[in-house]
């Protein structure tokens, strides 16, 4: 059954993007279709799970069809069907999982269940081959993790957030600044025009690679309250720059310490927040004199997509790590 240049149809519906991709040999994108619901959720100020699930349901066959068409392949040419099993919103995940099971069964193809974070990490495999051991910093709306990999498919979480994920703190601070959803890109944009004048706290959590962002978030919100109570003008640019500076300093420093301690050959930055301009610049600057290769995916592979799920699935395909038809979504799926 195994072949080296396998073609995988991959599906990702863990949050608010209905995404389907066709990937060849684990690192070649034949198609990568993403139907985003961002505008739909904007009016609610965040992703509403039931709304997201309903939209996935309406989009799923259309997006699958477009992905096959763009890749110029038929279902018969597909070697396996891959899908995000979790973590994510359960109702959203269920649409992808049930669609994947149905088409895998209809065409008698092996089914591969992929961890969403493994997907984010493997988004980098479109850039260069992995060189182990490697360290991955995964930062998104739901995750802030430092993961060491000694080989393909092996994940050792050495640090994670104890409260808010970095992206979550961004969204909450953006909300407090009355910026439209999603807040991350807005704060990054404002921060470019401001300076770190507020010197918000940095949560270093001694002797640990864990993160904590809720104290920082609270400090920013309190500061805004104070300013509003005193009727002082809020310098959005400086607030944004100060907040972002605090997040970035901790992310970059802890990542550097971990990368050095674990003597890794590569650093992979993954997840939605890896689209952040300042994070990309600071990380490259920090590692510029080190022998560690820094890999950050191009912007279109930072946010949720199915190409990354196909890349991670390729490893599982060769390890013959297949799921059966009783596969279920797992919103709390552990790496």
């Amino acid at each position, binding site marked *: 059954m195994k072949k080296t240049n396998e073609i995988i149809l991959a599906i990702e519906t863990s949050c608010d993007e209905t995404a389907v991709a066709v990937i060849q040999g684990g690192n070649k994108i034949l198609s990568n279709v993403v139907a985003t619901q961002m505008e739909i959720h904007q*009016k*609610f100020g965040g992703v*509403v799970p*039931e*709304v997201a*699930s*309903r939209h996935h*349901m*309406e989009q*799923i*066959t*259309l997006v*699958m*069809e477009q992905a096959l068409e763009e890749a110029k392949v038929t*279902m018969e040419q597909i070697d396996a069907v891959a899908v995000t099993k979790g973590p994510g919103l*359960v*109702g959203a995940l*269920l*649409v992808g*999982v*049930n*669609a994947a*099971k*149905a*088409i895998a*069964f*209809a*065409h008698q193809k092996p089914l591969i269940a992929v961890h969403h974070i493994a997907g984010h990490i493997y988004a980098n495999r479109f850039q260069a081959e992995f060189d182990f051991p490697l360290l991955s910093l995964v930062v998104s709306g739901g995750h802030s993790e430092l993961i060491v990999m000694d080989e393909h498919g092996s994940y050792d979480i050495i640090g994670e957030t104890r409260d808010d994920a970095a992206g979550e703190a961004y969204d909450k601070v953006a909300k407090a600044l009355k910026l439209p959803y999603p807040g991350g890109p807005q704060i990054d944009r404002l921060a470019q025009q401001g300076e770190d004048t507020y010197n918000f706290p940095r949560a270093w959590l001694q002797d640990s690679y864990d993160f904590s962002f809720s104290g920082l978030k609270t400090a920013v919100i309190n500061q805004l309250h104070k300013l509003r109570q005193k009727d002082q003008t809020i310098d959005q640019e400086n607030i944004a720059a100060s907040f972002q500076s605090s997040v970035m300093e901790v992310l970059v420093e802890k990542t550097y310490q971990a990368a050095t301690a674990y003597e890794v050959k590569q650093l992979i930055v993954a997840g939605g927040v890896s689209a952040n301009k300042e994070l990309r610049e600071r990380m490259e600057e920090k590692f510029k004199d080190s022998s560690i290769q820094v890999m950050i995916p191009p912007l279109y592979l930072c946010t949720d997509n199915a190409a990354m799920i196909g890349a991670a699935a390729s490893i599982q395909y060769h390890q013959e790590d297949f799921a*059966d*038809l*009783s*596969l*279920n*979504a797992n919103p709390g799926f552990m790496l």
Partner: protein
Amino acid sequence: MKVLAIDTSNQPMSVAVTENMILESELTVNVKRNHSLQLMPAIEQVLEHASTSIKDIDKIVVAGGPGSYTGLRIGVTTAKSLAWSLDLPIVQVSSLKLTAASLLYMDGYVSPFFDARRGNVFTGLYKVSKGSVEQIIPDQNLSMQDWISKLNEREHPITFISPNADAFKEEIAAQFQLDYQYIEHTLNIPRAGMLASIGVNQDADSVHLIAPNYHRLVEAEAKWLEQQKEE
């Protein structure tokens, strides 16, 4: 014509294969289990019992709501993905109509209903007679109390049927003023064999447009619309 029919609208799950209106195989489960886990293996099993490959199926019929949002999405996503990838015609049938159709050979008015929580129901009114089922009042979401008042005005006996065992039994006894029957287990559990026979002659729907009829807005959407009206 071989039909594969799927219903996961509520707690019961039912899957069947029929050929030329004759039931070949059916699996109906009514225990609190996970449809996402069980549906695909059930489809595989039902096909196997009918000695049929999925490639031999000519049409797919799915119960398209109302019902449990998650349950509906599991059944409809599966049905629609099968239909799309095998290029098969697909038909969506009201889950309430299917429930009423259990009483196809009765002569009279049937109110199938699903518990929609907090005193509400998904319901509609159907007339059954001589093997046919016809909709009289469209499927909707309202409080059981309002529904009973509406039915009281009609001045004819009603047969109530619901897969939610004993749901609203006391309310109906206390408030419905005319003759009625309350269908007890096990006729209240919708069966996919019946679903296949009421859907088989229905014109196919466009596969990409198939989506459950939830009959209720998401709360956040309802609130947002309300705000728009006020502004």
